[in-house]
């Protein structure tokens, strides 16, 4: 029983990270109808920036906040410079741009910070939390930060005018324009926020998976799985999906002997395929109906 509880809690902790990635993916998907493959590499690059800031002597939380700000601005700039000119272009143009971004960030990180694995300190310390072994301090901190961020995002989208504008722009760009909303800037804002969310995910998971240019590859896959489970059209669903994938991954790794640690990643892909077969729009997604 304690093993089970332990695994569920650990799953929720990593699931929070997947939830963040899923949310970042869904935010951009809602704005431009494409999956950003480079989301993970953007988060990885942000994490390196945080690492660099800490190396330069900034306290952890200062570096944390600075990194979020830098990532936000970078996300806005990427949208303005790379994606804006592609607006209305064919899906393949977007795919190529995402692949380009992915490899640019990956190689640049390797070039600047080299490919060796670095450790990334946890701000929550190690050892025991309240003298028990159920959940480690880092897992608890990871869960706490994720939940705070998700609540803040929820409040932002529900209760602020900018949040409502962003929802309107994503739901119906043409009508939003007719209400005077600057849809292009809302998309850029969405990219900035997705990059910022990704940077938080990267910084929180780095102490677990260690820092190196390919660290986010599997995380993004789990994020995609979470987004597909919840539905690409439903931010709330994507978050729940991310948590679900985290728990499923951990429990399967523990209780299904053949899965073990090595096969865990394929769980994400199995989940994606299974959900797409049974409920293509995800558990909370809305089927897209197109008039022909």
């Amino acid at each position, binding site marked *: 029983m304690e093993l089970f509880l332990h695994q569920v809690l650990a799953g929720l902790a990593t699931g929070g990270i997947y939830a963040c990635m899923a949310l970042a993916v869904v935010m951009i998907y809602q704005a431009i109808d494409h999956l950003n493959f480079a989301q993970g590499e953007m988060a990885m690059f942000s994490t390196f920036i945080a690492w660099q800031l800490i190396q330069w002597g900034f306290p952890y939380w200062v570096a944390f906040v600075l990194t979020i700000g830098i990532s936000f601005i970078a996300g806005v700039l990427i949208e303005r410079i790379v994606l804006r000119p592609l607006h209305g272009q064919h899906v393949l143009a977007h795919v190529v741009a995402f692949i380009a971004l992915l490899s640019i960030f990956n190689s640049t990180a390797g070039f600047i910070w080299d490919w060796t694995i670095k450790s990334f300190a946890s701000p929550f310390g190690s050892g025991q939390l309240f003298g028990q072994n159920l959940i480690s301090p880092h897992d608890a901190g990871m869960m706490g930060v994720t939940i705070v961020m998700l609540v803040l995002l929820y409040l932002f989208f529900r209760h602020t*005018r900018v949040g*409502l*504008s962003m*929802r*309107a722009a994503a*739901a*119906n760009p*043409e*009508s*939003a*324009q*007719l*209400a*005077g*909303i*600057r*849809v292009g800037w809302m998309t850029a804002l969405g990219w900035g926020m997705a990059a910022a969310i990704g940077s938080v995910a990267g910084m929180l998971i780095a102490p677990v998976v260690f820092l190196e240019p390919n660290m986010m590859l599997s995380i993004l896959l789990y994020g995609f799985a979470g987004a597909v489970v919840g539905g690409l059209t439903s931010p709330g669903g994507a978050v729940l999906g991310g948590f679900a994938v985290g728990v499923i991954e951990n429990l399967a790794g523990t209780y299904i002997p053949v899965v073990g640690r090595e096969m865990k990643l394929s769980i994400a892909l199995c989940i994606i395929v299974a959900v797409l077969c049974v409920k293509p729009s995800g558990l909370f997604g*809305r089927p897209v109906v197109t008039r022909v």
Partner: protein
Amino acid sequence: MSKVLEARELCAFYGPTQVLFGLGLEVDDGGITTLLGANGAGKTTTLRSLSGMCRTSGEVRFDGKAIGGRATEDIVRLGIAHVPQGRGTFSRQTVEENLQIGAMTRSGRAAIASDIERVYGYFPRLKERRTQQAGTLSGGEQQMLAVGRAMMLRPRLMLLDEPSFGLAPLIVEELFGILRTLNQTEKVSMLLVEQNAALALDLADHAYLIETGRLVMEGPAQQLRDDENIRKAYLGY
């Protein structure tokens, strides 16, 4: 009478295809002008051209200011509210959120809140459904919401694209009654596109007739109503 909207030599294009050919039309300040025509004549395109949603040439003046070629958002911000065909409500957002979206270009929380109440005053049914998702409303209620959202902009001019489309006659009557009230009490000028010519000519004071992208007739609404050819072709009696 001064003109709130003037278009000269307005042409519109979809890709390489030209669909409007040198339209000239005006809307009186405080008046209601209607643009009549058959399916595919270019009515919707005319409205889309005026609010900068397709490629155009020619001159468009709003309140004397040239607005041709400007971005849709900027034209809207000047005070032109476009109620598109098919209503364009935000179906997953609530009725009240839809109204708030309509006021997104404005500041002043209190003024917006009181305008929402004013819209509810015109459309009491929307008030009953304020927390409901717009997609769950009936067609008539959605059209009312679309007009209400346009009101939230405090527009000088409203562009209405077939507001009667798909609605039951009683609902249409109610809606057009409210449009008339809005015109009179809120001093909103209107450019109304309609297939239902009898209805439109009743409401409007001036009318244009468009055929395959060209204006073929214009005059006071009364005069078009009495015109024999119009009566046969568009009014059906």
